[in-house]
């Protein structure tokens, strides 16, 4: 029995004896590493950590993390996680899902766990494709995606995971991508947030949807393509040469040029993670005309579901002592005594 104490832990301690079964070069490897790097830093302990997933390449994740883990069924991880957390609120629950698992078959459970605000981290690996089933398009695939099930190109409008999360009532929305060095920081912020923390992680499926995010993930595109948001800091990108401001007429966001660092003059917005209106605008910024908003887009905690349940259970039970005999004897009763009947 190896009972480990946080101090002693290193990323290595979070690796299992299982062979990792993703395709060579899959973005999932980088995410796994990022998580294994994050866990020691936040002082997590393997015995109190539970990874719950659905089905998909991404959902294989729990097998590779040395903690408790449950690889459930397609789309249902949030519901299973809700039971885990309500049964034992002390557990640190992480949900790993994919764009198909969490937004196609599982969209409803994703909505409700966010609405209820169960304290957990939800990592949605968005590779804009169904990896495990060999490459069919997913709800996040771009219009025109050619796939085995859409040989002439997909025709439906893609879902926006972060926008969906906000619309569902999410109180934390973060974004990162597989090989980003900042991913651990986003994960830490998600973990620090008490409540359901939704993190969209862009992930490269090199076999079925290679490099769809290269426009902003690749080094050469980083400056123009990535807007890293920081609380209290102006929304600057392109090495500070550009920023995001509000178009007062249209009441929408716009990109502005920043002359020699004077972002105030350019009207660049200072990021306030608690501003929900701005969060809505950020998650809907069309990439291309705008950079990709990354980091912590929104973070404004409210009471969590499991704490409210625990509190109510305690309150309701207060002063009552469980007594089975009393319980079964409730209601209007009568007694039959020998000789009573004629």
């Amino acid at each position: 029995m190896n009972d480990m104490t946080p101090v002693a832990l290193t990323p290595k301690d979070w690796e299992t004896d299982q062979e990792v079964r993703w395709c060579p070069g899959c973005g999932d490897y980088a995410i796994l590493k990022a998580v294994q790097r994050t866990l020691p830093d936040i002082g997590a302990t393997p015995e109190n950590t539970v990874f719950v997933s659905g089905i998909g390449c991404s959902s294989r994740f729990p097998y590779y993390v040395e903690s408790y883990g449950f690889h459930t069924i397609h789309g249902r991880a949030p519901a299973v996680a809700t039971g885990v957390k309500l049964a034992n609120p002390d557990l640190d629950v992480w949900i790993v899902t994919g764009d198909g698992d969490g937004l196609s078959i599982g969209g409803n459970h994703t909505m409700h766990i966010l609405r209820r605000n169960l304290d957990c981290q939800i990592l949605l690996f968005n590779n804009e494709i169904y990896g495990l089933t060999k490459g069919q398009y997913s709800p996040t695939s771009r219009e025109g995606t050619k796939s085995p099930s859409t040989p002439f190109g997909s025709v439906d409008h893609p879902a926006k995971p972060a926008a969906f999360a906000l619309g569902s009532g999410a109180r934390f929305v973060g974004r990162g991508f597989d090989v980003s060095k900042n991913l651990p920081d986003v994960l830490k912020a998600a973990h620090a947030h008490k409540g359901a923390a939704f993190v969209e992680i862009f992930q490269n499926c090199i076999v079925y949807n290679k490099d769809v995010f290269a426009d902003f993930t690749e080094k050469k595109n980083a400056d123009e393509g990535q807007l890293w948001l920081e609380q209290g800091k102006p929304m600057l990108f392109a090495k500070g040469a550009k920023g995001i401001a509000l178009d007062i007429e249209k009441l929408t966001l716009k990109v502005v040029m920043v002359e020699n660092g004077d972002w105030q003059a350019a009207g660049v917005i200072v990021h306030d993670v608690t501003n929900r209106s701005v969060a809505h605008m950020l998650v809907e910024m069309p990439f291309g005309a705008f950079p990709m908003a990354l980091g912590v887009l929104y973070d404004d905690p409210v009471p969590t579901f499991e704490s409210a349940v625990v509190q109510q259970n305690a309150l309701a039970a207060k002063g009552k002592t469980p007594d089975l005999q009393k319980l079964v004897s409730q209601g209007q009763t009568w007694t039959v005594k020998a000789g009573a009947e004629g």
Partner: protein
Amino acid sequence: MATAVLDPLSSVAAGAAPEAVVVRFAGDSGDGMQLTGGQFTLSTALAGNDLATFPDFPAEIRAPQGTLFGVSAFQINFGSTDITTAGDAPDVLVAMNPAALKTNVKDLKPGGLIIADAGEFGDRNLAKAKYDANPLEDGSLAKWQLLSFDISKLTLESVKEFGLGNKEALRCKNMWTLGLALWMFDRDRDPIIDWLKTKFAKAPVLADANIAALNAGHAYGETAEIGGAGLGLRQLNIAAAPAPDGLYRTVTGAESISLGLVAGTQLASLPMFFGGYPITPASAILHHLSRLKEYDVTTFQAEDEIAAIASAIGASYAGSLGVTSSSGPGIALKGEAIGLAIMTELPLVIVNSQRGGPSTGLPTKTEQSDLYQAVYGRNGDAPMPVIAARSPADAFDCAIEAVRIAVQYMTPVMLLTDGYIANAAEPWKVPDMSSYAPFPVTFMETAQEGGFLPYGRDEKLKRPWVKPGTPGLMHRIGGIEKALNTGHIEYSPANHQAMTELRRDKVMGIADTIPEQDVELGQMGGKLAVVGWGSTFGPIYQAVRRARAKGLDVSHIHLRHIWPMPRNLGDLLRSYGKILVPEMNTGQLKTVLRDQYLVDAKPLNKVSGQPFRIAEIEAAIEEALA
């Protein structure tokens, strides 16, 4: 002269002792017939009669007043002998309006007594009930005894003094009627008066008005006012039924299952997690449990049935006993997740309150047509124990048994009940909880020697239950085939063969810890065995009893364990010349019996959404032995 006397029992075969009476209260959904019936049931129980009830209400919440589909009825069968069914045909029908009369009178025994509220038989209501003429006046009810007078008016008078609005005042009609019924059967009003006082504690005037109506109805019977036509109504006293000493209460199936689940988890010293989603007639269990938090019960109303069972599975993984409950359509949705519980070998109790199917079917009607789904309704070779409750009282022990099997074998268990059991009330001798042997669960906290094996086995073939939070025993489970012992992902042919057999053997092994099948009435061997399961117990029991009284060689066998079946069942069944299987479906248990024992089990099927009548089964017995 006798014929001039209205006799609730004139319908009972001449000379037969008034062993039992069947009364049906029928009225508009708004008339509070279920309340009336419930309170009459209580007073009946307090009078020491044995009884059984059958509430039958419409699918609509509050159907428009006066319509045929808006009729709500409550039937009670009570008597001085052991009662196990709500009775076949009523002796007395209380009809609060034309629609109630129209939809119920055909069931009334010839010569039976009709008590009708003449005040409601105006043209509008007659039209709504599709009567061309007023049946109270056109002689069309001649084959029954009719007692009709203006209950509405009498009620209004009785509550005048409280100055209620007309609508509110009329709401007291049901209490007036109850008062009359209490007088007819010589009952004590006090408990009902107490109940009214607590019910209307916040509105004393309503309490007083209802009590006044109750007393007025009672007085109306007493002061032979009845029938200016000079008719009298014979008052009846049904003797108390012989019953063992002890404390009694009335209980519905929904209540007893909830209590049994609590008792079971307490005996297993586990917290209970209940994940549910409302559906008729299963919701009542969610409602009951949500009030029992002091018994370490957490209830969770999920977004759908899949989330309900998934959350229960998650809770079981985390060390609570996960329970979920639904009925037909909702259980269908749980199929995939049940497979996950089977593969991950987690304890779970799934309660199915069966209703009329297929599809949405008849939500408020009873049926037994989900047995196939329970035993066979999953993808893959997915064995799961199934047990069925026979009555509201029996459901308590069944729920405890379901919990025991789930935790002692680390398996999901399906507990079958139905709409009839869920809603019906019957007297229940309060069990002595100290007489139940606890079966506390021990979680694994240190690895087996030789190293931790999440899929290692004990002598029952059960795998260890390890709670997340336990240091050193971290492990991963999931729905992909597991390797023997280690529980790792494993696709090899030999392993899948072995695991499939292991899952089967584990479930079949449960037969080692369940009692052998006994015979309810009669004995092993003979001409005919009537084999039943679930809520058909009452009618089968009575039918076999009557047939045996006539000297017929027939026995009654009633199954609690549908899967696996008791070890001796095959030999037992083969000891009879014929086997008759009455079911409220098209023959589902029949399939299992024929498959398992190759016996020529003959089905007797009723799929009308109504319980069997004793007479229907009696006739089938006589035919089988003819």
